[in-house]
Structure formats: C-alpha cells, structure tokens
C-alpha cells in the first residue's frame, strides 16, 4: 500500500462489473431486458461463505464505499469512516460488497447508459425503479458472487431502506439488518423537498426533457440547486451555525447589497452544488429521489408496518441521530415499535449529535462503538 494512504484504509481498490442477461421485472410494470451492475469488494470471502456483508448506498452514493482508486485519489469512498481494517465493518473479518444501484450514474445501467433498442442514451426512457427492484437486482448479484446468505445487509438513509426491504423480501437470505438514519417511509415534507429539487432540474432550460446527453449539455444550474437544497436538509441548524454562522466572505465585514456571494454559507453551498454537477447525473438524481418517495413497505399491508415486518427473520440494529430532522429518531422508533409488536430481536440507539442527517457518515465515537460492537457479534456468530 502506498505510504501516504492511512493504514486503517482498505487501500487501493478497483471496481468490477457484471452483466445480467435475464430480464428484470420492475415494480413500474416494465422490465429491464439486460443490465450491468458495477461493484467493489473489500476483504476475503471465507470458505463457508458466511462472512459477506452487503452495503447499500444512499441517494448520491455509489459502489465506491471505501478505499482509494489510485494514489492520486484525493478522497476515499463515501463510508471510509466505517469500512476498513479494524473499523466497525472490519474488512479483516468480513467480505464486503457494495454495488452501484440500477439507475445510478457510476457504471451500473442507468439513464446515461445506451439503450440497446435505440442505440442512444436511455435518458427519460429509463424506467423508474424502486427499492424493491434494487433489492431483487442485488439478490442476483449475490447469486452471481456465490453468496446465499448475507451475514448482514447494512445501509444509512436510502441504503437503510434497502436493508429493511431485504429483510422483508428475502427473510432467509440475511442474518442481520443494520439500518442507520432511516425512516419507514417519507413524510410529506420529505417528498416536498424532493419535489423542489426535481423541479429545479426539470425546469432548467438545458434539461431538454432529459435528453441533454444528445444536446451535449448538462442542466448544471438545476442539478446544483437541487444539491444545495438537499445539502441544507442533510445538515442541522446547529451544524450550519457552528460551521458558518453569519460570517461574511469579503474583507471589511460590510454588506455589499447585491446578489454575489457574501456569506460563507452561500459560498459553501455554491461550491457543493458545482462540484456535485461534475460527479453526478441529473436524470439519476431525479430517479433516486423518486425511489425515496415511493418507498413504503407498509403500503401493501394496509399501512400496517407491523404486518409488513411480520415475516422478517433478520435481527435488527437501528441507529438514529438526535439532530437529523430529515429522518428524525421518531421515524426509526416507528420501525422499532413494529418489530417489538412482532417480538423480533431489535436493538436501537439514538446518538446525541448536532450533525444532522449526515452524521451517519461521520466518526462519532458512541455511534462507531455501538456499530462495531454489533458487527463484532455478527463476526463471532458467523465464525469470521
């Protein structure tokens, strides 16, 4: 491993790709005739194939959960804080798989992929998928990798929703669910934020009905706005105050009385928006926010979450964060209650922090200790 990479990192990693020819029927009624899934793995699968962990990514994540793609890579994968040797998901003990979900923009088949029927990018023709569709595609990935049963399926936010759906759809194919900063369904307020983000993209003059690839443009302003809005909701009021306050960027501390960047927070959000445009696809953002909106496993059980979870066999660890106002602790408690109703094994921790929804990506001591303790229990159980 190169010298300047941290010793507790999985180091240099490479991505893999698998092609699937068997059509995948989707919740929307359509099906994907063929598709690719791009994924990364860390650690070694043991001889009993009992130590595999699936990590599911959130809205803007990808298959690159940990490590670096090259020595020049400035940033590690999105969950470097929790995945690596000696970390909560200990790659010395577990075999970790993380894939880019269908509809993504990091290699798995999505709106920017070429539609084999038209030989041009899918764009708006890419079907809207659901968490359940993702879980089915991940089950096929597991089959291809020879993994009959995951020791655990793990994720935060939208990733946690996938972990819960796994327990519902494939009760005998996973031992544990670890769902962090999650909710059993979005609130009207959540959907409202997603709709504003989508409108920012859909009304950008460079969106071209989703066919911007062919116009060699990108709806930069819309996507950046969507990200700026999202970013505000992932932080807490306290976190933003601590980070920026009302600090002004210009010297002299005087207002400029115009619409240039004046406050530090404006500068930060504009930077976040700009840099997001360089690494993310607008059609994928539209699709991912819809996946969030649609997630509601209780819906087909007469809106009874207990009934939806009645047949799960996995044991659960749920963790929430006090300052997460996007998915506040009360939403996790709904899941806890539904599992209690069914007398299922469940552990739940609410972490006191000011970091908002994004806290699930941060190395907060009690959070990582609880996560580590739980994962060590799983490792003992599966002989990892």
């Amino acid at each position, binding site marked *: 491993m190169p010298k300047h990479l941290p010793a507790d990192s999985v180091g240099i990693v490479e991505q893999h790709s698998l092609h699937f020819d068997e059509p995948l029927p989707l919740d929307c009624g359509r099906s994907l005739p063929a598709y690719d899934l791009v994924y990364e793995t860390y650690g070694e699968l043991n001889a009993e194939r009992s130590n595999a962990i699936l990590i599911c990514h959130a809205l803007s994540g990808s298959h690159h959960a940990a490590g670096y793609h090259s020595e020049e890579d400035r940033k590690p994968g999105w969950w470097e804080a929790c995945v690596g040797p000696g970390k909560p998901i200990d790659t010395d003990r577990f075999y970790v798989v993380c894939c880019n979900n269908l509809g993504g923009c990091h290699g798995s088949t999505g709106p920017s992929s070429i539609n084999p029927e038209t030989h041009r990018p899918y764009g708006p023709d890419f079907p809207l998928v659901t968490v359940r569709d993702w879980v089915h595609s991940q089950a096929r990935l597991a089959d291809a990798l020879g993994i009959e049963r995951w020791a655990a399926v793990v994720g935060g936010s939208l990733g946690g929703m996938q972990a819960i759906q796994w327990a519902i759809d494939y009760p005998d194919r996973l031992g544990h669910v670890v769902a962090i900063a999650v909710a059993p369904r979005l609130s009207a307020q959540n959907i409202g934020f997603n709709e504003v983000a989508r409108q920012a993209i859909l009304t950008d003059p460079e969106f071209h009905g989703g066919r911007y690839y062919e116009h060699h443009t990108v709806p930069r302003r819309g996507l950046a706005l969507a990200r700026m809005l999202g970013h505000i909701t992932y932080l807490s009021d306290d976190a933003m105050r601590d980070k920026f306050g009302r600090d002004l960027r210009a010297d002299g501390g005087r207002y400029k009385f115009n619409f240039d960047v004046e406050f530090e927070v404006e500068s930060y959000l504009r930077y976040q928006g700009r840099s997001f445009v360089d690494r993310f696809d607008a059609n994928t953002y539209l699709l991912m926010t819809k996946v969030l909106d649609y997630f509601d496993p209780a819906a087909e059980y007469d809106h009874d979450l207990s009934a939806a979870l009645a047949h799960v066999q996995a044991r659960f660890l749920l963790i929430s964060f006090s300052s997460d106002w996007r998915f506040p602790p009360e939403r996790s408690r709904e899941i*806890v209650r539904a599992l*209690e109703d069914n*007398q299922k094994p469940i*552990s739940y921790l*609410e972490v006191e922090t000011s970091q908002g929804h994004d806290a699930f990506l941060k190395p907060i001591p009690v959070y990582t*200790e*609880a996560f580590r303790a*739980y994962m060590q*229990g799983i490792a003992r159980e599966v002989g990892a």
Partner: protein
Amino acid sequence: MSALRPDLAIISDWIAPGSRILDLGCGDGTLLAHLAGEREVTGYGLEIEPRKIVACLEKGVSVIQADLDKGLSDFKDQAFDYVLMTQTLQAVHYPDELLQEMLRVGREGIVTFPNFGNWRMRLYLGFHGRMPISRTLPHTWYNTPNIHLCTVRDFEALCAERGIEILERHVTDQAMHDNALMRQFPNLLGDVALYRIRQAAR
C-alpha cells in the same frame, strides 16, 4: 457465571425457562445475557445511557434506548412473561406509574430496590442527621440518581393501594445473604429487597 450479582442469581431462579423478558434499566446487559444463556429467555433491555447500550451490544443483548420516565406505551398489554426492574425503581420520576405499566405489559414483575428502612440507614440519619451513604446507596444527596427512595413497608403499602399482589419477597444484606432473623424483620435488617409481583385480578 460465578460473577453474577447474587440478587441477579435469585431473580434468575424465579424465571421460567424460555420466557419473554423486558428488563427496565438493563444497564450493561449482565442479567439479560445470563438469562439468555441459563434460561433461554428472549426479549429486550431498555436503557437510556448510550455507553451501557454499547456494553449490551457487546454481549449480544437486544437493547432499546428508552427513557423510562416516558412510560412503556410502545409495548402492548401482556407482551412479556416477566418485566424486570433491578435497582431502578428508586431512580425514576413516577415509580408508582411505572410499576403499574410494568404489570400491564408483563404477566409478572420482578423488582429490586435498596431498602431505606434498614437499621443502618436509620442509625446514620439518627446519629449524623445527614443523608445516609452506604454500599447500596453510595451517592451524596445532591448527585444521586436515586430520587424516590423507599422502605420495604412503603413498597408493600403502595402495592396494597394499587392492587398489586406480592407473589414472593426476598430480602438480603449487602453481601446478598439472608437469614431467619432478616426474614422476620425485613424492613429493619434487609439492605436489598427483591419482589415478584403481579396485578391482582380486578
């Protein structure tokens, strides 16, 4: 499990194998881990302290973060065979309500608390005129988590008032031993009181 606190060993003897348990204020999960191993019980611990929750997870105990002062409304009636509360009753805001809640969600309750009626407590207060400090109550008055101390007679009076039936009582000294004299004068000689209770039919 020779390291198990003797009061916890007594509780363990009271519990039928395979029971469903709720342990209120389960601390580091020692009792539940023991009961899972010895009595094959299932269920949860409730605990408010994050560090203790981590300790439970290390033992493989299912633990849910909860504030007992907010009640047990998350749980259905008679969802558990036993609801346990060891050395916690005296630290909650509404001990009377929590007692009734535990007997709503559980068929039986098992409660242990430090007996403030013990002769040492009486002597300490009588001689020093200050709040007693002992092995079972090691805090000073201003930093103690124990805000609702009671005696064996207080507890039994509350049970009588609320229609709570006492199925078994056990009092021990600080070393968790008992003797005939202690059984004769539990409120005077007992340091720790253990009760198995249930809601009497109404």
